[in-house]
């Protein structure tokens, strides 16, 4: 059931992916991306768009390459010497792997939230203020205060911490720490937020709060999320991409993927028919 599609924009052929990999209004466009760790190919000829102001969920079994692919989107793999990336990765038409692209500035535009909340061992205020300070985004203390408060508000954490902004960020609960990390990401005004299993270490209440937050954040940001929770992907994303052994098997609207997927491998995975 392989559909061979052809890019309208760059003429590159995309094979082995079922469904429409092209978004009407893409924020990021990846074409024919290969990732190697030494000789081992972790990502095989993956092409996909991230639609602007939408949540795209990347799902698949452990080791399928979804996190590797996510980390390519803000060059987190640059620090791994044995990692080699081929293909085209464009952010608003701009090649993010171009030699003139500053990875630090790129990561300000494409922020990332990880599985385990990783606040700095600093105060809540300093955690959020860290990014704006190093990127010089605040002209004055008042500006910085405003960024911190706004970011905490957007992350849905402000009400809970407004009276203890000088307390340590590591003293917060797991769910609060994760929202602090989201506030820290938002503080540098990113365009895209990448999330790698952001709620897998959280209880159902904290998870629900994060999911609600993601739904609100998509109004301003483009979001890509890796998750092992099928229900979470079904709840929060508009597009779902299924990875299997380094290949992108199927891309489609989340409704379609979770009610009537086209590829047998997708069907097997989301219905729990293999590990």
């Amino acid at each position, binding site marked *: 059931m392989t559909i061979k599609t052809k890019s309208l924009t760059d003429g590159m052929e995309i094979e082995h992916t079922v469904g429409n990999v092209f978004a009407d209004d893409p924020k990021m466009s990846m074409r024919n991306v290969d990732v190697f760790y030494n000789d081992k190919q972790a990502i095989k000829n993956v092409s996909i768009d991230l639609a602007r102001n939408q949540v795209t969920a990347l799902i698949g079994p452990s080791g399928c390459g979804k996190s590797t692919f996510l980390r390519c989107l803000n060059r987190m793999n640059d620090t791994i010497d044995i990692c080699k990336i081929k293909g085209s990765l464009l952010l608003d038409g701009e090649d993010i792997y171009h030699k003139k692209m500053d990875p630090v500035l790129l990561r300000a535009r494409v922020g990332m939230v990880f599985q385990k909340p990783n606040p700095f061992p600093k105060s809540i205020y300093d955690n959020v203020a860290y990014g704006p300070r190093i990127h010089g985004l605040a002209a004055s203390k008042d500006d910085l205060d405003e960024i911190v408060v706004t970011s905490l508000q957007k992350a849905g954490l402000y009400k809970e911490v407004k009276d203890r902004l000088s307390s340590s960020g590591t003293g917060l609960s797991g769910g609060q720490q994760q929202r602090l990390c989201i506030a820290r990401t938002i503080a540098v005004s990113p365009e895209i937020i990448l999330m790698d299993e952001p709620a897998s270490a959280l209880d159902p209440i904290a998870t629900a709060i994060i999911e609600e937050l993601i739904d609100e954040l998509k109004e301003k940001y483009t979001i890509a999320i890796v998750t092992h929770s099928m229900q979470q992907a079904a709840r929060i994303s508009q597009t779902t991409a299924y990875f299997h052994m380094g290949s992108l098997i199927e891309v489609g609207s989340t409704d379609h993927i979770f009610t009537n997927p086209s590829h047998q491998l997708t*069907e097997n995975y989301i219905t729990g028919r293999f590990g």
Partner: protein
Amino acid sequence: MTTDLNITGHISKRYNEELEQIRYLVIEMGELVIKQVEDGLNCLLTSNTELAQQVIDHDKKINQFEIKIDEACTHIIATRQPAASDLRLIICIIKTITDIERIGDEATKLGRNALKIINSEQNPRQFNELKHLGDAVIANLHQAMKAYAALDIETALQVIEQDEQINIEFDNISRLLITKMMEDPREIKNSLRITWCARAFERIGDHGKNICEYVVFLVKGKDVRHISVEQIKQTLKDF
């Protein structure tokens, strides 16, 4: 044409068992309701009051099946969060048992009307037409349950197609009974009761057709309700 849709094959063997058990319960419920419809027709044809009363009494069994299967489906949804074909299966089952339960209600109507007709002074002579309609509906119902059990799209389409013939048959009987009522007003009471029986058979045919539409949805993931047979065929061809 059976499907390669894999109902089992989950990593969790218990999940496989739970789904298989629900599917089996629906088949059992379907067999019981077909027996009810057959008995409903037979009690009319043989003027058997005992059988008519039995049809009325046995409807409770069908209602109990509906409750039991509903509970099992709720349990699956709550504990397994089914997706894709599993989700379609659960939706198909929940909707199918609603239709089966209503077929049971229609069979009860046959029993009730049979009791009234048998106990009346008039001896109606329109049972031949009713037998023809009833037999066609029962045959279609058997096919509908076969389509469900085997997830057989081809049989499902035949049932959907055949239902149009059943509707035509019902119209013919209605016309015949109206003529008889006009010819002899003493026949009106029983002719109306026979009309209601014919109507019950026609509705049973509709429910059988509904079940087959759910089978198409389950197997193909396409909602083919409220469209013509030609459109259904075209939809499946395009799919």
